[in-house]
């Protein structure tokens, strides 16, 4: 069985290639798959109808979740598979002539169709509730794709979505039901659940099982388009007609019927089963039949006819008696045969005549008698005319319901009357269909009708022949269905054998009440057909009843409106609002919890650390700095104040006994200060506060409350700590395992090396991010060397008013700094004279190399003394920053012959290598080795391999700092110079405040309208 499934999906996967090669004839190749499977199915007949009663296959899938590929081919599944595979093959054959050579996307369509057939087959043979559900949802998705085949047409898209929404909603309810059922049964194996159904229903979880069954029925009802979900099926008429034929006759909607049939042997006695199945079934049968008589599109007549028949089938299949079960499956087969025939005929008419409108079709029968005969057989079978499949099936249905009603309950009499009424409607719309499609209508021009090719007509013709064979010789169908009906047989003594209880399918039962009812049906149906004008007039007088489609539209519309309303209230586009809500929750919940818990504060609280009494003094400085940063209304003042807190914290680290942290924090604060100044050169000095007024109070409240919450949360969290810190082991581990004295550094490069590796990856990402933000395109790693740059050309001040004081200053500074002094720094000559500072250049010359040496010292000594890769890298970065500030961007370029991107890559690679190499040597990732050796000059050397990792860190940090300098420094310099040389472009907006306002207004409306500014190199 799994092979059959696999072949379906495999061929579906390659279908687009087949279509590319063979065009629409590839449908024949696709049709071969279900056709061969159908043959295989026939060979399984012996096994399925043996004493075992089924063919099973089980493959484990996810044992932890009790999910398995459990398949079981029993008589019910076998009969369903006949329809699914047989009709699937015929419809695919039909597709090969239905679609035109020029149609687009046939490959995808064929693949979906074949997969759909496979999924339906999987659905009926699945023996696991969850596996069945998976197939169930797959049919939903594939039907969505198939219905929406003509995706450029609004009608197709909309009805596909409608079908998807309705059936998925039902499917979700069903999933809950399936899980409830599987949970209370303790197994998800369907055959096992059905076997223990009686004990389940009467057992302690009987209520849950009843509820579960109702939920599962909700899924079946939505799938099978029963009232109140009946509207999606006529809507799905936007699908290509072959799809409609398959959906209506064998797949999709039959899944719901199948589910009812599958569960009926076990659960038809549960509390709400009968009322749901019979009530909704009957309502659907009547509504469908009634509406079918109103339609003018022959396809819609059939669609509402299917709705009606689905209600009918649900009733029969769900009744839960042996004779009804027998009749139900017989009816299912008959319906599949005639409905497929009729839809395929409709497709031919539409294809040849270009319309399906009853009011435009006229005289089609005269032009294609073969088509008329095929359709006539189908319609007659639908109406239940003797000698055909429909008659045989309907006869035994009536038999079953007469038997049901003979109990004498008023309710079962109502059902019987309803069924007869429904059959009358069925007869009437069958006749109306034939009349509408084929009759010659007075006053209507004869329809242009192209001749039908035999290959086009083959599929419906085969189906109609099968309807006749079935009608004339129902014994084999009877034999197929009997084992299923026997599942319902009563085991009470005197009830007779299962076959006696179920009765038999036969053409002639003698003069029975059922035959009388059939005769009555025919008489009334004929009367309705001949009185069709009266019927139409009566129907037009009835106001439009509750329209399910309209209800759906209103529901979806209301849902949309609610969503928009809620979104509009919560997503107001203001970051301030979002943050305020999030942060308020962040302090309100923990604060409430702490107040409610009312725990006493822990004992060991202290303000003054006996080992470090100066902390409160430094703390006061930090707090003052932070408050000043909040109050500052000048940009750089605020930045400086934040730096004050940063340096203060460095001091705090030192006081706490953390020299590494203090060192790193000092270096970082310094570099951040440089970066801030570089990046914010172009921004206005004032920090305007636009969020003033009432918001300020709220912000103060949120901030203060958050701070207080954090303090108390921290106190409680730390007070709750009982375990011994893991870090007590660290000194020993660091010395013995890591071979280093600096415990923090060994922690970084050895004990927690993974953590650090993650961090340097983030650094590389952030560095690349900075570069991309400024350079926009590329990383800008290719900078020109300084030799190519004209002397004094960088950062030259232009556009200075000649008479002004600045001009005089400029002239003097140029005079003093005019000579090309390359003695101190390499690219100093490229700077404009007024930008140079001889003192700075000399100092740079003196300290750059010392700093680099010092950084290397920090790196190598870091294992045993304060320092390490981070501190070393930052020191080296600082040295580069000094070079840049003294000599401009070309100086920076000269100082770093290797690009920042390359540095990041080398650094990461080095660190990664230090992790991987031990693995290759048979150790573990990031394992450290201690190598002791003697070198002539240096003497005894103890080299720890984790130093290599630290070197990687060092290089990455240099790369990061370099990227910051290049982006926020060099590149922005270049932006400035380009602006100055092309002042006409942007100058007005920069200079005149009024113009800025105007510009700002423009931006407010069209924020993306301003072109990106980047340099020529950035664009390259």
């Amino acid at each position: 069985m799994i092979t059959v499934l696999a072949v379906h999906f495999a061929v579906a996967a390659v279908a687009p290639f087949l279509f590319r090669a063979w065009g629409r004839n590839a449908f024949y190749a696709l049709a071969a798959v279900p056709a061969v499977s159908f043959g295989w199915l026939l060979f399984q007949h012996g096994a399925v109808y043996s004493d075992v009663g089924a063919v099973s296959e089980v493959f484990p899938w996810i044992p932890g979740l009790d999910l398995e590929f459990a398949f079981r081919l029993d008589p019910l599944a076998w009969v369903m598979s006949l329809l699914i595979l047989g009709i699937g093959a015929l419809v695919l054959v039909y597709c090969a002539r239905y679609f035109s050579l020029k149609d687009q996307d046939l490959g995808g369509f064929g693949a979906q169709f074949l997969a759909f057939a496979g999924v339906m087959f999987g659905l009926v043979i699945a023996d696991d509730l969850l596996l069945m559900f998976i197939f169930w949802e797959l049919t939903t998705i594939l039907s969505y794709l198939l219905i929406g085949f003509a995706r450029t047409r609004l009608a197709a898209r909309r009805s596909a979505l409608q079908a998807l929404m309705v059936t998925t909603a039902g499917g979700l309810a069903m999933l809950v039901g399936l899980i409830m059922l599987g949970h209370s049964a303790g197994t998800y194996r369907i055959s096992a659940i059905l076997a223990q159904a009686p004990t389940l229903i009467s057992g302690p979880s009987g209520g849950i099982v009843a509820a579960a069954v109702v939920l599962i029925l909700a899924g079946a009802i939505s799938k099978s388009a029963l009232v109140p979900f009946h509207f999606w099926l006529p809507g799905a008429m936007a699908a290509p007609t072959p799809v409609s034929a398959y959906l209506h006759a064998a797949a999709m909607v039959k899944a719901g019927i199948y589910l009812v049939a599958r569960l009926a042997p076990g659960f038809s006695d549960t509390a709400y089963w009968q009322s749901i199945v019979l009530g909704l079934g009957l309502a659907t049968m009547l509504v469908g039949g009634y509406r079918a008589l109103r339609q003018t599109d022959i396809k819609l007549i059939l669609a509402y006819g299917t709705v009606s028949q689905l209600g009918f089938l649900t009733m029969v299949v769900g009744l839960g008696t042996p004779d009804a079960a027998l009749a139900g499956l017989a009816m299912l087969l008959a319906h599949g045969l005639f409905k497929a025939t009729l839809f395929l005929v409709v497709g031919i008419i539409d294809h040849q005549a270009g319309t399906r409108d009853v009011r435009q079709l006229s005289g089609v029968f005269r032009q294609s008698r073969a088509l008329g005969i095929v359709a006539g057989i189908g319609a007659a079978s639908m109406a239940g005319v003797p000698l055909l499949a429909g008659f045989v099936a309907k006869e035994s249905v009536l038999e079953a319901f007469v038997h049901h009603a003979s109990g004498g309950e008023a309710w079962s009499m109502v059902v019987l009357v309803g069924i007869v009424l429904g059959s009358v409607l069925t007869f009437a719309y069958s006749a109306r269909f034939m009349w509408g499609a084929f009759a010659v209508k007075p006053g209507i021009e004869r329809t242009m009708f192209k001749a039908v090719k035999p290959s086009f007509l083959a599929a419906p013709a085969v189906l109609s022949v099968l309807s006749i064979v079935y009608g004339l010789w129902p014994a084999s169908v009877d034999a197929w269905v009997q084992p299923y009906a026997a599942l319902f047989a009563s085991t009470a003594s005197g009830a007779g054998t299962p076959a006696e209880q179920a009765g038999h399918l036969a053409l002639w039962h003698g003069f029975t009440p059922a035959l009388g009812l059939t005769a009555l049906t025919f008489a009334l149906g004929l009367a309705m057909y001949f009185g069709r004008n009266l019927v139409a007039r009566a129907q037009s007088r009835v106001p439009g009843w509750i329209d399910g489609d309209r209800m759906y539209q209103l529901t979806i519309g209301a849902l949309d409106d609610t969503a928009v309303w809620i979104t509009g209230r919560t997503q107001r586009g203001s970051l301030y609002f979002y943050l305020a809500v999030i942060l308020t929750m962040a302090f309100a919940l923990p604060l409430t919890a702490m107040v409610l818990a009312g725990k006493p504060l822990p004992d060991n609280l202290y303000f003054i650390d006996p080992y470090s009494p100066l902390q409160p003094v430094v703390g006061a400085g930090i707090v003052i700095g932070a408050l000043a940063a909040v109050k500052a209304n000048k940009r750089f003042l605020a930045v400086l104040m934040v730096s004050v807190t940063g340096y203060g914290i460095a001091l705090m680290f030192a006081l706490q006994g953390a020299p590494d942290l203090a060192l790193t924090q000092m270096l970082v604060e310094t570099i951040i200060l440089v970066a801030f100044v570089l990046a914010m050169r172009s921004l206005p000095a004032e920090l305007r506060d636009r969020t003033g007024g009432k918001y300020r109070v709220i912000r103060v409240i949120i901030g203060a409350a958050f701070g207080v919450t954090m303090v108390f949360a921290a106190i409680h969290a730390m007070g709750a700590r009982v375990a011994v810190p893991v870090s007590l082991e660290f000194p020993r581990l660091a010395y013995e395992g890591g071979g280093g004295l600096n415990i923090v550094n060994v922690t970084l490069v050895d004990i927690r090396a993974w953590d650090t590796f993650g961090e340097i990856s983030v650094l590389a990402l952030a560095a690349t991010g900075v570069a991309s933000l400024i350079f926009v395109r590329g990383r800008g790693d290719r900078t020109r060397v300084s030799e190519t740059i004209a002397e004094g050309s960088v950062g030259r001040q232009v556009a200075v008013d000649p008479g002004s004081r600045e001009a005089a200053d400029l002239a003097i500074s140029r005079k003093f700094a005019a000579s090309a002094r390359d003695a101190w720094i390499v690219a100093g000559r490229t700077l404009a004279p007024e930008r140079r500072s001889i003192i700075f250049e000399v100092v740079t010359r003196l300290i750059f190399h010392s700093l680099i040496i010092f950084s290397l010292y920090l790196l190598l000594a870091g294992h045993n003394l304060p320092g390490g890769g981070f501190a070393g890298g930052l020191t080296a970065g600082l040295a580069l920053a000094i070079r840049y500030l003294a000599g401009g961007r070309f100086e920076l370029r000269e100082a770093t012959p290797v690009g920042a991107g390359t540095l990041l890559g080398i650094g990461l690679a080095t660190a990664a290598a230090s992790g991987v190499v031990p693995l290759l040597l048979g150790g573990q990732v990031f394992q450290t080795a201690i190598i002791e050796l003697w070198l002539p000059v240096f003497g005894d050397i103890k080299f720890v391999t984790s130093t290599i990792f630290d070197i990687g860190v060092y290089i990455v940090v240099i790369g990061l700092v370099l990227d910051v300098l290049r982006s926020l420094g060099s590149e922005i310099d270049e932006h400035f110079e380009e602006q100055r040389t092309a002042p006409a472009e942007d100058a007005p907006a920069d200079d005149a405040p009024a113009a800025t306002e105007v510009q700002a207004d423009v931006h407010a409306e069209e924020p993306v309208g301003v072109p990106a500014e980047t340099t020529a190199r950035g664009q390259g």
Partner: protein
Amino acid sequence: MSVNLTLLTVMGALYACGIYLILERSLTRVLLGLMLLANATNLLILATGGYAGLAPLYNKATGAHEYADPLPQALILTSIVISFAVTAFMLGIIYRTWVLARQDEIQDDIEDLRVAETPRFDAEDDTPIPAETSEFPLTMLGGDGSTVSDHPTAADGPDEAGSVTAGAKEISARDAAAEEQPGSQNVTPGPEGGVK
């Protein structure tokens, strides 16, 4: 476990100031707020180490309890450098915002506001569709309708259909039809590569 209230008080003050700042509209202040929050968090981690102690440089004579706790220090060291990287990234963003929009302020998200103003009428859901009674609509060939084809001819294409009004814009019917096609490339890319 000992709790150092000095560190925690300073931490609380930094959190309060940081939160106050990130609720601001100015991007620069938001960034400063983030930096204060990072500092505050570093202090929080530091406080988990307990009493101040000796610098964690191994010495055989020193007991494990006498060092300042090395684990929080390792975590903070990581945090300091990452904060630096994030700060640099934010600086890049601030600069770019300034270059693009001449603004250092966080604007209300126009797209969010647009969602709130979504009209009840959704063309995809609510446009009335005329009943279609065929998948193969006939097209008359020639003026007299004497011949019939089941495919629209080029002459009847959207060329002569004029223009379509979509929202406030008027676009030619051919473009509109092209946009109906899946995977339409019929859009002008904006300066940053997005759709304008």
